[in-house]
């Protein structure tokens, strides 16, 4: 399936792009991250410590165990610092 992936803050900087569309057979966020990690060093670096990464599926906060079925937009970002 095809999903749009968005990156924010230092994840965007480390990976070098704000968004991309990927073809994936991953069934969970964790599997998607594994696929990305094996693509290139910059992805491996960005996802080296998942404790520092949050994920949203179709603009709702989620977690790494969550299934990807039906999801169109995945976003990765560091813990939020609003206010």
């Amino acid at each position: 399936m095809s999903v749009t992936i968005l990156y924010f803050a230092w994840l965007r900087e480390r990976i070098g792009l704000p968004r991309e569309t990927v073809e994936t057979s991953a069934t969970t966020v964790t599997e998607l991250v594994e696929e990305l990690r094996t693509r290139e060093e910059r992805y491996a670096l960005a996802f080296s410590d998942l404790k520092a990464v949050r994920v949203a599926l179709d603009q709702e906060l989620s977690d790494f165990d969550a299934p990807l079925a039906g999801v169109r937009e995945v976003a990765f970002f560091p813990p939020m610092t609003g206010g």
Partner: protein
Amino acid sequence: MAIRVQAEPFDYGAECNAFAQRVDGAGAVVTFCGIVRDNEGRLQGMEIEHYPGMTERALSAIEDEARQRWSLADALIVHRFGPLAPGEMIMMVATASRHRADAFAAAEFLMDYLKSRAPFWKKEHSADGESWVEARDVDEEALKRW
């Protein structure tokens, strides 16, 4: 109820006055605004990034939650993004209720939640370079009291 996510500055005094004048049947209004600290003069500027779409959804969800917990006549959240200079206002919340306890509690709740549950990220620019502001444990801890 209103949520605004914008790059341009807002007039805090005018927002507070307009809010207080339009609330119907409320006896209490609480307002708060956050300002870019200059870190003893070291900070040159700040850049706020956000996730358009999710930001509005997250703020709406937080506001809905506040309305379920307290009896609010009205609420307002304004949050800026883009480049900001030290001393500039970053965001504001306003709450209105019949009696003050609800408005105070709801304003604190909105602040606590939007700090760590709304998708904003701050980057600081100083003479030493630039760095992303890290989330603080105390901000995550603050959610537990609700």
